[in-house]
């Protein structure tokens, strides 16, 4: 017997603040347009007509880090690009999330050499890793969905340790 039942027909719902905010965050998450290499082409495919990521509130790829809350690192990160990547990450407003798309961004992929970072987690903290070289657009969408689950479980107040 919740209060919802009494008030439901008056158009009022009660919930927790966490739920509302997290619902808002997951339904309009703006990724930053951050294509680096081959994976970026699959990211573009995911945006295009056949896969249509805008179904999940992500049709807006922002070119500016200041307007985005998700960074999809799509492709290999070279040692020359790494400081740029970190600066862009620092420019994004809180809260922010990172998806490492593809093997290269996750662990270096086939390029185990002097030029490529062995995983973008060396420069920015990563929330979701998407495997594949390149991951199919469906895999990317699955990665985004996984991130949504994570965001939905976000707690505003850290649970107190007993």
């Amino acid at each position, binding site marked *: 017997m919740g209060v919802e039942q009494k008030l439901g027909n008056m158009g009022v719902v009660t919930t927790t603040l966490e739920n509302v905010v997290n619902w808002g965050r997951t339904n309009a998450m703006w990724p930053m347009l951050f294509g680096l290499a081959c994976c970026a082409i699959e990211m573009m495919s995911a945006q295009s007509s056949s896969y249509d990521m805008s179904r999940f509130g992500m049709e807006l790829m922002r070119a500016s880090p200041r307007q985005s809350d998700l960074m999809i690192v799509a492709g290999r990160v070279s040692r*020359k690009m790494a400081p740029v990547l970190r600066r862009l990450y620092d420019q994004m407003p809180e809260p922010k999330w990172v998806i490492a798309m593809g093997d290269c961004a996750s662990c270096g992929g086939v390029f*185990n050499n002097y030029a490529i970072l062995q995983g973008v987690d*060396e420069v920015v903290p990563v929330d979701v890793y998407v495997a594949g070289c390149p991951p199919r657009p469906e895999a990317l969408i699955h990665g985004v969905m996984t991130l949504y689950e994570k965001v939905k479980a976000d707690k505003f107040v850290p649970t107190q340790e007993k």
Partner: protein
Amino acid sequence: MEAKLEPIVKALQAKFGGSFEEFRGEVHYFVQPAQIVEALTLLRDQHQFELLSAQTAVDYWPQTSPRFHVIYQLSSLAQNITFQLRVPVNGDSPTVPTAAGVFDSANWRERELLDMFGIQFEGHPDPRRILMPEDSDGHPLRKDYPLGYEEPQFTFNFEDIDLRKPYAKE
């Protein structure tokens, strides 16, 4: 040797001496570093080699004299042939005169060779690194430069390597 290549080799031999190699129909002609600009100009102006298709180098380390071969791959559109010039360069302070005055494309290619092999091009208009970060040291494509291999993680060594990994902070 292809008939069209013969007069070219003759002309080069008359002017610079030097030897050539042949493999699967391709001719590689050796010239000295000091002669390269003249040789390229000759080929471009008198034998219609309009295109410098590729310019690269090979490192024969630990051999030191010559340590490098700088390679100029030329194409002629008019005659539809290709020709290769090779310039042997010694290992201590490798220097070649720049070809940027003959072919504009040599400008970036020589920057790449400078970056990757550390070969200096005398008189180059813009000698900066092109691919690697400005503050990096070493020349990656030299044979004595390590590949920079990171050990792959397996179950038995996962922890060890994970501890060594420089994970980023928030």
